[in-house]
């Protein structure tokens, strides 16, 4: 197990390095940064001045080495737009996105697990069908549109919750529902599949034969075994949500990491964009690492892969 964890950690670190290279190259190869920063109306001389000022005239490899060398020390340089360092900006925004992602995941899990368990126990009943319907519809709705619809219904129509902003905890409810809804179907289907698998096994039949109450069989014996893969998937889903929060944050004007990335993209503030892409990727890599270790702890066959 320890050697599996070690090997997996090695892969995680090298993937981080590769993502760093890719996110750096992506921004440097897809256009001329100096022209983009200087703006469309600036003269060729201005563009050259910007190029020298930001060190963009140096060889690509040297630029990358400097950037990466500083990045491992969590120094992503200064924002082109603000006076602050990139880390100050990120430090200010990261808690908002983590809170949003955390609440969204919590909501998704709180709905997905009971629904998945019920769907497995009452297989092919209306509960099962309803849960499938929710999953299928959920995967079809565009998330920005679902977010706007929630505003229309719960903020404008029913006036239960605020429209946008992030001053109170109520402001996080609608965005968290909008974000969490997309993680919910897969978590629910996995809970259902895991429960069906476990409920058909011999030890559950033994537990039932011993005369244990149905509730005890389901919660103490079955759910306990079905839940670890669900938790592993939840970790991966959280990683996806942090990456996808840019859309939700922009709809609800939540001042999180996604909104920072989005604003920085429109301001040509590349140091910030690079840092956010890398930070979100690092979170994702870390979370999938946790998921893999969880699954490996549960199923020894996984460790040999």
């Amino acid at each position, binding site marked *: 197990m320890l050697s599996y964890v070690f090997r997996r950690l090695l*892969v995680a670190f*090298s*993937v*981080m390095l*590769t*993502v760093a290279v*890719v*996110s750096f190259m*992506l*921004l440097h190869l*897809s*256009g001329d*940064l100096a022209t*983009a920063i200087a703006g469309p109306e600036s003269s060729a001389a201005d563009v050259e001045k910007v190029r020298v000022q930001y060190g963009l005239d140096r060889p690509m490899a040297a630029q990358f080495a400097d950037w990466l060398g500083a990045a491992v020390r969590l120094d992503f340089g200064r924002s082109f737009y603000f006076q602050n360092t990139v880390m100050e900006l990120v430090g200010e925004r990261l808690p908002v996105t983590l809170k949003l992602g955390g609440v969204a995941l919590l909501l998704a899990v709180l709905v997905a697990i009971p629904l998945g368990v019920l769907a497995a126990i009452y297989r092919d009943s209306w509960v099962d069908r309803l849960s499938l319907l929710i999953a*299928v*519809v959920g*995967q*079809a*709705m*565009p*998330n*920005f*549109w679902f977010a*706007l*619809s929630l505003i*229309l219904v719960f903020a*404008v129509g029913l006036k239960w919750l605020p429209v946008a902003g992030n001053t109170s905890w109520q402001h996080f409810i609608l965005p968290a529902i909008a974000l969490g809804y997309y993680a919910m179907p897969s978590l629910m289907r996995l809970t259902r599949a895991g429960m069906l698998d476990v409920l058909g096994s011999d030890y559950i039949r033994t537990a039932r034969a011993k005369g244990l109450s149905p509730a005890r069989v389901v919660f103490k014996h079955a759910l306990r075994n079905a839940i670890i893969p669900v938790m592993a998937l939840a970790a991966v889903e959280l990683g996806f949500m*942090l*990456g*996808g929060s*840019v*859309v939700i944050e*922009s709809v609800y004007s939540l001042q999180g990491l*996604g909104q920072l*990335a*989005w604003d920085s*993209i*429109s301001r*040509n503030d590349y140091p910030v*964009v690079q840092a*956010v*892409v890398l930070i*979100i*990727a690092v979170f*994702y*890599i870390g979370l*999938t690492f946790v998921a893999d270790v969880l699954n490996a702890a549960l199923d020894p066959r996984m460790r040999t892969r």
Partner: protein
Amino acid sequence: MSSPSLSLPLPTMPAWRRGLRRSLGHRGLVIGSAILALIALAALFAPWLSPHDPYAQEVTQRLIPPAWYAKGSWEHLLGTDKLGRDYLSRLLYGARVSLFIGLATALISGLIGTTMGVLAGYYGGRVDAVVSYIVTTRLALPVVLVALATAALVGGSLKVVIVLLGLLLWDRFAIVTRSATQQLRDAEFIAAAKALGASTPYILLRELLPNLMSALTVVATLEMAHAILLEATLSFLGLGVQPPTPSWGLMVAEGKAYMFFQPWVIVIPGVVLAVLVLGINLVGDGLRDVTAPDGRN
């Protein structure tokens, strides 16, 4: 007691008829195909079905509600947008954009992903390790952010969206074809082809690929749905398809400012988008059930 001869007529039926019968028995697949066919026809015949020019602005006819509202008119069945353009006509032309982006993206990402997956599955070893590593790296990149950042630098357009999504959405193709190829690699018909002296490209393209087609179709439909949703998201955020091209995501973005008083401006394009994606997903899930070796479910 039943005599065995009584239960035999089914296997004599030609394979395609058995497939058709299975497909028609699958409710999701039938509903999904019907939705998809309807929207595809609407897109194909948009110039003939549209009551108005989707680009024609009419300043006096701004934000007219759909016909079933008291203030609506039959002249504009689904109303008009903020520039007085006919909503139904824009919706019909928008179907073209969505379907085209879905198909083109699935084609590009399918080509990339299948090539990687087949090579990894067939050769194994170091090739497999490299491909798996690339897939892991790709999965670690946040798609929406990377697409947004790149589109901002290059400038958003239909072409850019297709190329970007094509280059980003190949992961599932690679994963599925890799494991399917691993299972087929040691099959007897591959060994037979090798024994007959067939070249590796021949084996991969003529022997292996046809056997991956059903798995590929399933992934292609799901990725098509994925691409359509992402195009709508990029267009909604202003870095996808550019105005005045009618894109459903863009229509929601343009209607956003008016949604508090005219909710239909975002409800209509959003619902159509969800229905299209739902249809494609139903077809994909249905095909997976129908083509599964053990039949339905």
